[in-house]
């Protein structure tokens, strides 16, 4: 049985760990609130862009001169997977569940004989995926020094993706991230961003629009913007999900540490009691022997 001193040290160290996990939980809770308000603030823009796009796209989709971002390249041989994860760990299954979804998707595509390219956003996803897909990862976007993801980060990522698309490096792009449902539920999601998936139109435009400049020119500007908006939305959802996942993971860790402290304390008290009893027996039996 462990000595009293050893037990005392164990208890002290578990207590210190518990303090850390507790603090991390509270920090995550505060950050989560901020991330959620940011995700909400971004929603109106994304909705409006989708509406305008839906209005425009129904007019032009299906025609042979539809832009490639909308109509696709006509092939689906090369797939680009944009995998957005966190920069830090200690957030439960958050990173691994996104990576698993992306890995399953990639394996399925490879089995179908398609070519797969991966762009990692966030180090953690890269760390997980490089073991299996090392040579297929074409780029890693590091957001370590970014405190709060803003639209400019989404633009940088989008520019990279669009440049690759212009060079004909891929035909279909899919974005992987975790949709934020609640603190205990984040849903890993795959979303196709190129060619754009147009939401079914709610109601037709009540009157034909006047366009300035040409319809096709507006669409040519709107489509890249739409990709950026989707990426931005995904990054914000991801940020909220990460904090949510971390919060519940740290809550669990704090609770586990509490259980452990209780068990160790019980053990410590028993050992102490046993030792006192032993000493008493020794004294008494010593006195009787005289």
């Amino acid at each position, binding site marked *: 049985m462990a000595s009293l001193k050893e037990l005392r040290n164990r208890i002290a160290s578990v207590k210190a760990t518990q303090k850390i996990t507790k603090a991390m939980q509270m920090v995550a809770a505060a950050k989560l609130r901020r991330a959620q308000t*940011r995700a909400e*603030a*971004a929603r*109106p*823009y*994304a909705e*409006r*862009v989708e509406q*305008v796009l839906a*209005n*425009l796209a129904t007019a032009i989709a299906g025609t042979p001169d539809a832009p490639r971002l909308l109509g696709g390249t006509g092939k689906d041989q090369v797939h680009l997977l944009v995998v957005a994860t966190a920069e830090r760990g200690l957030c439960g299954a958050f990173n691994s569940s996104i990576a698993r979804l992306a890995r399953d998707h990639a394996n399925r595509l490879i089995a179908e004989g398609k070519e797969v390219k991966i762009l990692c956003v966030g180090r953690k996803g890269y760390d997980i995926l490089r073991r299996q897909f090392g040579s297929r990862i074409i780029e890693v976007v590091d957001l370590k020094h970014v405190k709060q993801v*803003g*639209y400019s980060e*989404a633009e940088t990522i989008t520019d990279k993706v669009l440049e690759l698309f212009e060079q004909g490096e891929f035909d279909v792009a899919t974005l992987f991230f975790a949709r934020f449902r609640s603190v205990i539920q984040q849903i890993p999601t795959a979303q196709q961003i190129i060619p754009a998936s147009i939401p079914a139109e709610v109601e037709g*435009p*009540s*009157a*034909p*629009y*006047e*366009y*300035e*400049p040409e319809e096709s*020119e*507006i669409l040519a*500007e*709107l489509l890249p*913007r739409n990709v*950026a*908006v989707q990426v*931005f939305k995904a990054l914000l959802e991801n940020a909220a999900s990460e904090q949510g996942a971390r919060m519940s993971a740290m809550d669990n860790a704090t609770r586990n540490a509490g259980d452990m402290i209780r068990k160790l304390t019980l053990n410590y008290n028993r050992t102490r009691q046993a030792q006192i009893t032993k000493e008493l027996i020794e004294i008494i039996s010593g006195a009787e022997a005289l």
Partner: protein
Amino acid sequence: MVAFPFDLVSPERLLISDQVEGVIAPGSEGEFMILAGHAPFISTLKPGIVTVEGGTAPQRRFFVRGGFAEVTPEKGLTILAEEAIPFEELDAARIAQEIKNAEEDVADASTEETRRKAEERLNRMREIQSALGGTVAAAH
């Protein structure tokens, strides 16, 4: 004057959602003004100033870095700005930064097409800077 609904949104936030009387926006083919009852209309915007008249304040001005304007009979005018900054938060340093970015874009441009676009943008920013020169300097 008749009021109509107007929304100004940027990717990061909703700046205005209000009933206003008139909005002047920098369309890519020239400035235009929207009043109540305008026909359905979509236009791209170039960097410039959006002026909003009426509503909760007599006159509000915003700097936008390009985007879209859409007019529908039901929802009035919606401006989707790439970036929108209220005039009060705007300062000379900000404009100078934009000009620097534009200059870099011109230098980095790989094709004739992108260079032309970047140059256009740079000229536009310089115009704005000189137009603002008085008001911004006075505010600081």
